[in-house]
């Protein structure tokens, strides 16, 4: 029976190709626009490390100016001072902990023909790799002793290893970076968290760094500070060391706290730490220390761009227009079929059968519209990629759940659109229709 209704539905679609095409196009456009924008929003707000995003916490302490808070929302500064980053690392009160900063420097490949070039560097601690489950291709993270003894070791990104060592296992090799000789401890496999949650103070969708090395080297090697440096008072002593010991913030820190008890303990430890610092004359503001997990931190840093959210609103309204359009057209179409429906009812078709037949017709329009919408969404994502360039590189891929969502959206939309016209079609009074023939 269903296959017969299906045949009827397709026949009916073919009878008014223009009208059917218009309905399919409307649903396709609505679904395509929605899916494009939903995908961008979904990837922007995606959990970059779902297996443990609720166990990783970003550390903020309010070391800011007594006269004004860092931020209108009275949040603490989004970064730490060197003093606090190193003190909190030395305390070792979390299961895992990694303070970090972004830096950069010139790499001089051993090959004399190869030109020196500039590379981005993440300065951090050994725990960074285990905490964020960073995959290694060769070698391993450096050791805790390397951190403590300020050893010149480096971990290369896959792209960097391909560029300098042709992709071979380079562990143990040496490399001149920022004018200093480093030993390669390991090489990462491809690793690009989206968003790049571990440092949201610069672009949330930036690519991960080329090189990773111990943060403890920053002071002895006087490594550059990239990212944002914010100060509320000038350093008290001159020179590089004066800058590090100042109240300027340029460092980030994450801790891994496996359960809620650990979090409470760490929060108490932070408060305690700030109180002891107050005795030294620092931290003039009231106690305001925060631990935010990955998703909370992304929310606070407003990772999802306003434009993307505005477009999400608009795209749903766009879909609504397309649906209204389809409802009106279906209504007109089914009402024109009243004589036919009257005839079918008169020769024995029940209301239910008429209902199923027309819902199938609406559903097939939805399915076709969904497929068109999917194609349009792929096109739309390409377009978004082209318009936004490298900013959107990591934001324009469609995965299986999204494809299913698109089809589901189209189907639900078209059934929703089909429901009322179908119900109206069932209300046809057979005797009246037959009389007017």
């Amino acid at each position, binding site marked *: 029976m269903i296959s017969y209704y299906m045949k009827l539905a397709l026949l009916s679609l073919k009878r008014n190709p223009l009208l059917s095409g218009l309905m399919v*196009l*409307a649903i396709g*456009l609505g679904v395509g626009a929605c899916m494009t924008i939903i995908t961008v929003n979904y990837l922007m707000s995606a959990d970059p490390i779902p297996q443990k995003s609720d166990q990783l916490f970003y550390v903020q302490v309010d070391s800011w100016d007594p006269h004004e808070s860092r931020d209108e929302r009275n949040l603490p500064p989004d970064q730490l001072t060197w003093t606090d980053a190193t003190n909190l690392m030395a305390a070792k009160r979390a299961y895992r902990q990694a303070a970090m900063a972004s830096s950069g420097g010139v790499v001089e490949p051993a090959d004399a023909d190869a030109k020196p070039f500039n590379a981005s560097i993440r300065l951090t601690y050994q725990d960074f790799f285990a905490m964020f489950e960073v995959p290694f291709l060769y070698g391993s993270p450096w050791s805790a002793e390397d951190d403590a003894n300020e050893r010149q070791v480096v971990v290369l990104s896959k792209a960097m290893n391909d560029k300098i060592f042709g992709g071979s296992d380079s562990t143990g090799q040496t490399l001149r970076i920022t004018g200093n000789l480093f030993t390669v401890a390991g090489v990462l496999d491809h690793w690009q968290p989206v968003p790049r949650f571990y440092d949201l103070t610069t672009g949330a969708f930036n690519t991960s760094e080329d090189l990773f090395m111990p943060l403890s080297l920053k002071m002895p090697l006087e490594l550059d500070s990239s990212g944002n440096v914010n100060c509320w008072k000038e350093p008290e002593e001159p020179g590089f060391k004066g800058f590090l010991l100042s109240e300027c913030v340029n460092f980030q820190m994450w801790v891994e706290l496996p359960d809620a008890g650990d979090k409470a303990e760490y929060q108490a430890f932070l408060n305690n730490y700030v109180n002891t610092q107050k005795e030294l004359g620092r931290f003039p503001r009231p106690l305001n220390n925060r631990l935010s997990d990955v998703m909370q931190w992304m929310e606070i840093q407003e990772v999802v761009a*306003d*434009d993307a959210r*505005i477009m999400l609103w608009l795209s749903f*309204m766009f879909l609504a*227009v397309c649906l209204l359009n389809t409802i009106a*057209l279906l209504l007109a*179409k089914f009402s024109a079929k009243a004589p036919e429906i009257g005839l079918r009812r008169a020769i024995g078709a029940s209301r239910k059968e008429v209902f199923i037949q027309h819902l199938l017709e609406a559903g097939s329009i939805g399915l076709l519209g969904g497929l068109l919408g999917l194609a349009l969404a792929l096109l739309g994502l390409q377009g978004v990629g082209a318009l936004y360039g490298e900013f959107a590189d990591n934001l324009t891929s469609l995965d299986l759940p999204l494809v299913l969502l698109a089809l589901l959206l189209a189907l639900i939309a078209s059934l929703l659109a089909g429901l009322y016209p179908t119900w109206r079609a069932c209300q046809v009074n057979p005797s009246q229709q037959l009389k007017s023939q």
Partner: protein
Amino acid sequence: MRDLGPILRAMLRNKTGAILIAIQIAVTMTIIVNAVFIIQQRNELMARESGLDEANSFYLTSVGFADDYNPQNTTQEDLLALRALPGVVDAIQTNAVPMSGSGWSMGLQTQPGEEFDGTGVAVYMVDEHGLNTLDVELIAGRNFNQQEIRWREPAARTWPDVIIITRDMAEALFPESAIEEVVGKTVYINDDQPINIIGIIDKLQAPWVGWGSVERAMLSPEQTLFNSANYLIRTKPGQRNSLMPQIEEMLANSNKGRIIRDLTTIEDTRERSYRRHSAMIKILLIVVLTLTLVTAAGIVGLSSFTVNKRRKQIGTRRALGATKGDILRYFMLENLLISSMGIALGLALTLGLNMVLVNNFEMQRLDWYYLPFGMAVLWLLGQLAVLGPASRAAAIPPAVATRSV
């Protein structure tokens, strides 16, 4: 107008169709008006000038890495060589470039003391060639002279004694004074270090295009002794593209202890900094266009259907003496009524969406004239869409009435 009665009665008998179209028109109007408003705002944002000679300027970064790298000698040699090149108007070393996104900001205050708030300002460290290279005009006071330019050590904590500021910054600091009177005034940096304002320039944007006070900038007479330095170079018209590779090669060869990177034109910098706005504009334009077409197609489809359904009725009317014009007018008027209902609802929805956007995002209130504009567009759209089906209706011959009765 005598058609009004029959039209209303016909509409009441088929309420749902009319209501659906009206809602569709309302939502379409809501999206179109708000989208056009956003587009217009982004256009205004993008039309702001940086102050530079954008078409003929570019910059590059020089990063020293050799152990014996000397920033002072390198800067002096580089600038001499750059300024001597034929085709180069002028060149400076600077810590930041307008619109580039990264720079340095400080606060200036009119009274000393840490209890007073400073006014945020973008800092450009330049020498006496700054005004010429940046293509800014001195509207009051004087330029720096060579003796005033100092070398800035990394992590230096003090500032020079004199600065030049933009007109916007002068107005922000001294809203009561005329521009000429601001010259010679003292302001304070780092809470209590006094600085004398010696000149005012017309216009120079900060490096951050998204900053609300992007027109507030100051020039500080210094050259940095950092390992990494930017050179901003202004060329004669039309010579930028040929000079860029030439200069890159010249600098790279003159000193092997450094690398030259990020050779970028100001035009590219502008494009990059405003890319998300231009992308938003394009996306919204596509949305507006598609939506207009969908709604128009919907109206065409639906009215064609109604016309077909009423063929016999129309034929009868024609047979009873109605002219073609009467039939045409009937359908046009019907559409006008439905559109007007939609537009009335659309006005409320448009303002509602604008309120949502104002409350949730950093958006401004809609200017009033967008509303009549939106109404006119939707009315016109409806009338144009119905014109085809209505003229087909008018073409139905009276003979139809006599057939197949």
